[in-house]
């Protein structure tokens, strides 16, 4: 389908495709098997300017456009969902700094994140605060020139390989979500360590560990924005980031679709109507997912206010499509599909996380329903007024 990408977007897409094919494809199995973070790969992507796209132009980036993120991430995920996650996590971590940090903080952190010299991650989730994200127990107590952080963050992507973290902690427990503040934490701050490393079903090229704070001293100037606004920053950041998850799912779905098409062709299955139905549905749904992801990205980039609902659309649908395509692919390939060498089983393992991370699809649906409730309420009021 023609999406009328600008010349710059086309150039980015080509560059991302080349990197994915030449740098990611040769190592994707190795990192999946070992469950290791592809540090050299991510650094090289930084050198080639692929991390700049997540950062505003004033701070060494190219504008932090969501459309650019989606284009680049999709291409990497088309080859490897794990590498795409390892790559895209930087955008989630640096997003709050780009948009809610002070001028000084931005100048201090963003340029080196843009080059890939420093990697960035994001710490919100805790053992008891998954979908219920506002229930975080990590505390930040102000003592003189420092905030003292205590608590354990869980399932933190890229944690032990990153240099800078956006971390959420409660500065006032009595205020619940409104007592949560955001901090910029550097890896060398005393009292920060890494806990258990997770052995995951998929995206094994992205390392996931606990992030442990034991009386971790964070300079008070590393508070982001204002105390108590951390949760709002987080939600706004998620609104911007979700199309990126959609793009990872989209890339996985695209890759799985291409693999299936090639398999069906090689095995002369395309004349079989059972196969035609499956492959046609795949093509339709992958394209629909792409259209939705791109449309949301354009909407956010255009500065439309209040994109929560559409942002959730762009995460739910592509991730559901990625799972559906991968499951159909594996069924179509039969016993070949469950063997590592045919790669589709990895697509399936990688696809599954896209329905879970950055807010499960269930939570996304509650977000959508909440927005729809508001719409229904205003429709009801309008009807009252007009009658």
């Amino acid at each position: 389908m023609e999406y009328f990408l600008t010349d710059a977007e086309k150039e980015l897409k080509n560059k991302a495709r080349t990197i994915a094919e030449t740098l990611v494809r040769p190592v994707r199995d190795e990192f999946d098997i070992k469950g290791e973070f592809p540090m050299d790969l991510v650094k090289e992507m930084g050198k080639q300017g692929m991390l700049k796209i997540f950062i505003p132009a004033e701070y060494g980036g190219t504008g932090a456009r969501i459309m650019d993120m989606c284009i680049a991430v999709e291409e990497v995920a088309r080859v490897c969902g794990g590498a795409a996650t390892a790559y895209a996590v930087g955008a989630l971590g640096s997003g709050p700094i780009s948009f809610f940090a002070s001028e000084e903080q931005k100048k201090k952190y963003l340029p080196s994140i843009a080059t890939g010299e420093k990697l960035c991650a994001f710490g919100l989730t805790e053992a008891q605060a998954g979908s219920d994200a506002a229930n975080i127990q990590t505390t930040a107590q102000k003592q003189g020139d420092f905030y003292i952080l205590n608590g354990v963050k869980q399932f933190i992507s890229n944690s032990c390989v990153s240099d800078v973290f956006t971390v959420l902690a409660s500065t006032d427990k009595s205020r619940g979500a409104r007592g949560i503040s955001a901090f910029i934490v550097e890896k060398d701050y005393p009292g920060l360590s890494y806990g258990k490393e997770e052995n995951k079903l998929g995206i094994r090229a992205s390392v996931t560990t606990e992030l442990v704070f034991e009386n971790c001293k964070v300079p008070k100037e590393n508070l982001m924005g204002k105390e108590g606004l951390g949760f709002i920053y987080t939600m706004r950041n998620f609104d911007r980031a979700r199309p990126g998850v959609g793009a990872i799912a989209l890339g996985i779905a695209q890759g799985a679709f291409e693999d299936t098409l090639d398999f069906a062709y090689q095995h002369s299955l395309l004349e079989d109507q059972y196969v035609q139905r499956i492959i046609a549905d795949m093509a339709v749904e992958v394209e629909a997912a792409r259209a939705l992801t791109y449309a949301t990205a354009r909407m956010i980039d255009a500065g439309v206010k209040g994109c929560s609902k559409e942002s959730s659309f762009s995460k739910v649908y592509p991730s559901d499509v990625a799972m559906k395509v991968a499951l159909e692919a594996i069924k179509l390939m039969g016993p070949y599909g469950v063997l590592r060498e045919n790669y589709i089983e990895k697509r399936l393992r990688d696809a599954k996380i896209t329905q879970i991370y950055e807010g499960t699809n269930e939570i996304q649906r509650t977000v959508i329903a909440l927005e729809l409730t508001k719409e229904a309420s205003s429709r009801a009021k309008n009807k009252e007024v007009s009658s």
Partner: protein
Amino acid sequence: MNLNQECVMLKSELKKFTQQVILDKVDEFEKTCSFPTDNIQKLADMGILGALVPETYDGAGLDLIGFVVSLEEMSKVCASTASIVATHNAFFIYPIFKHGSEELKKKYLPPAVTGEVVGGFACIGTNEAKAASNGENYVITGANPLVFNAVSDGPFTAFVPISGTDSNILACVVDGGSALEREDTNASLGLKSAGIRRIVYRDTTIGSDSLIGSPEKGITVLNDTHDCAIICFAAILVGIAQGALDEAIKYGKERIQFNQPIINFGMVREKVAYMATHIEASRQLVYEAAMLYDTGKNFHRAAAMAKHLAGQTAIETTNQAIQIFGGYGYIRDYPVERFFRDAQVVNVIGGTPAMHKEIIAKETIG
């Protein structure tokens, strides 16, 4: 559907065994991809390895319904164990006792019943080997990346196309001592402890005494073997789905979010309702197919339906179980991701979903 007294007793015996013996070891076997030799021997001692073998060959002579109920119980905890037992009975023993010569039966059935031999099976869908006649014997060359129960030097059954014929298939027992290599590639998504190996044939000679039926009848042996086997593997899928549902409910009751157990939430309850309904429907179809088989009636349509629905159910149920677990479902600390992976593999044993749909359509249209 009411199970008879024998089935009920068998079911509770297997349940006790899986809880007391298999459960503790399952993670270790999974992690190390090791074949549960001791547990399989214990199952042999209980008669499960000779479940379908008639008493005349010292087997348990169970009805198929008794066997599928047993498989279902094992799969709730460990699909690899159930798959080993099902492969041994349905893909190894069954074609031998249904179609093999008296000599072949005498050679393989007694040790298969006692567990001295655990028989394997080379998956049809992935077969890349060919057989050629050299006048006296057949010689197999090529490979098969998906051979079940192939861990030690045991025999396995193989169905290999014969070169130079239209569609003749050599149905045979490949003896453990034959010229071949077993590669431990750990390439399968699931059933990690089911002894899956890649077999590379090295001009493997198959004597006439190792053929199951005549070469012209190979396809008949294959189809007949498949028909019975898919009921067994459908039962494993039902067990996997039930195991995943049980785990999801347990977790859903313990996991507190928004100040209450997540099992209270509508989106979780909807999944539970879906899972429970599809599991029950699949189970009834599996039992129906097994009982039709046991009473000598036409069971083909029911068997294909059972495998088709149970496969869909196991895949969707294990997928939703992971979703209920959220991030915890995605890590190896909890069993649901294993159920999910195992379901994918079992679903494609004995034919793809499209093949089963075609059987159903054919039998339904008439």
